[in-house]
């Protein structure tokens, strides 16, 4: 119960932070970190997969409403929710051993870095490609995706450290 509450509060705080603060900061016009994805990354692995998919879709829809980008965040978040459990079972031999908590201390440093890195790049690539809806400025787009992913990753990494 306590844990569920923690997840919900973290989700609300992250959505507000993303919508009110981070979306209004303009880091040179290239950095668009989407740190709300953190709440999807840290979801317990004991969740049934269909629940995780629905949570992903709902979080994405709320973010779409905030950013006025109907469907874009939803598509990206659903993809993250679908591939995350698959990746976790790939990275960890014995899923039961790690318990439901997902962070670097339960998964291992290297495994957690790989998981969050790939998920963040997947999410940012989908969001920015779908938002632009064209590949006209491909070089610029790729740079923006990489730099934004890096920034999100650093923030996720720092948050993970505070959880130890």
């Amino acid at each position, binding site marked *: 119960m306590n844990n569920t509450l923690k997840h919900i509060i973290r989700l609300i705080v992250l959505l507000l932070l993303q919508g009110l603060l981070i979306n209004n900061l303009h880091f040179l016009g290239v950095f668009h970190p989407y740190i709300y994805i953190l709440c999807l990354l840290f979801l317990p692995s004991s969740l049934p997969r269909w629940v995780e998919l629905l949570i992903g*879709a709902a979080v994405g*829809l709320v973010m779409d409403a905030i950013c006025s980008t*109907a469907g874009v965040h939803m598509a990206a978040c659903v993809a993250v929710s679908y591939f995350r459990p698959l990746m976790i079972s790939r990275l960890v031999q014995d899923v039961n051993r790690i318990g439901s908590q997902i962070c670097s201390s339960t998964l291992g440093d290297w495994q957690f870095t790989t998981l969050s890195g790939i998920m963040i790049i997947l999410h940012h690539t989908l969001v920015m490609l779908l*938002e632009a809806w064209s590949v006209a400025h491909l070089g610029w787009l790729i740079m923006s995706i990489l730099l934004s992913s890096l920034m999100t990753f650093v923030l996720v990494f720092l948050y993970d450290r505070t959880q130890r």
Partner: protein
Amino acid sequence: MKNLLQFIMQHSCLLLFILLEVLAFLLISTNQSYSRSTILTSSNQLIADVNATGDDIVSYFRLRKDNEQLSEQISRLQEQVQSLENALEPLKENADTTAYKYAHLNYQVIPAKVIDLSTDQEHNYLTLNKGKRDSIEVGMGVVCSQGVVGVVSRVNERFALVVPLIHTGINQSARIKKNGQIGFTSWQGHDYRHINLAEIARHIMVEEGDSVITSGLTSTFPEGIMIGVVEKARLDEGDSYYNIRMRLTTDFRKLHYVQVLRNTAKNEIDELMVDE
């Protein structure tokens, strides 16, 4: 039948995933045009309320700057009034000024505040704190003290969603002030400071520094509101139209107070169109 059920059970996650993705893509493709659905944009009542509260907090930190801007604008207006009065003085005695007056009386100005805006996307938007109950309607023009901002695309009771000039789906009729040539603006994305001017034919003289204003051909904006200044005008061999890049006079990242223009003669003009 049994096999089918078994298949569905086995792949329920994959199927749900595909279903949700298809839904998301349906949403994206139906919202590619700039008239987006109200629920999923920042003119959504709840989201707009949250944004308005956020803006209330932030605006205290901006008070000083806003004050400076306002007083600057007042002094500029005073100067303008003075120079216009000076210019009017010799005309008063003989000229018939009624025609001039009427041309300018058609627009009513509704002041509004920007509570949310984006400048980094291809489909940018801004949200205003005025809506239907302040008699704002879809299609009205929005300007600020520096120049044209955009066009209202959605309204609900208390808020309005504006599509700015820096949106890849909007074209605004524009005129080069010096020679009266008419073209339209088009935005290519990414750079919120610059916009292109299309459809200016090659025989026309265009120079760096020429002012570009609204044409007055649409009922959205009166003629003569600043849009931008020509920064580069390129004419390649074989091109029949210029490639014109202009610097927008409106700084979209600093937008705070704007004015919505209500054309009081719009209905009469529309009526004429229908009768034709």
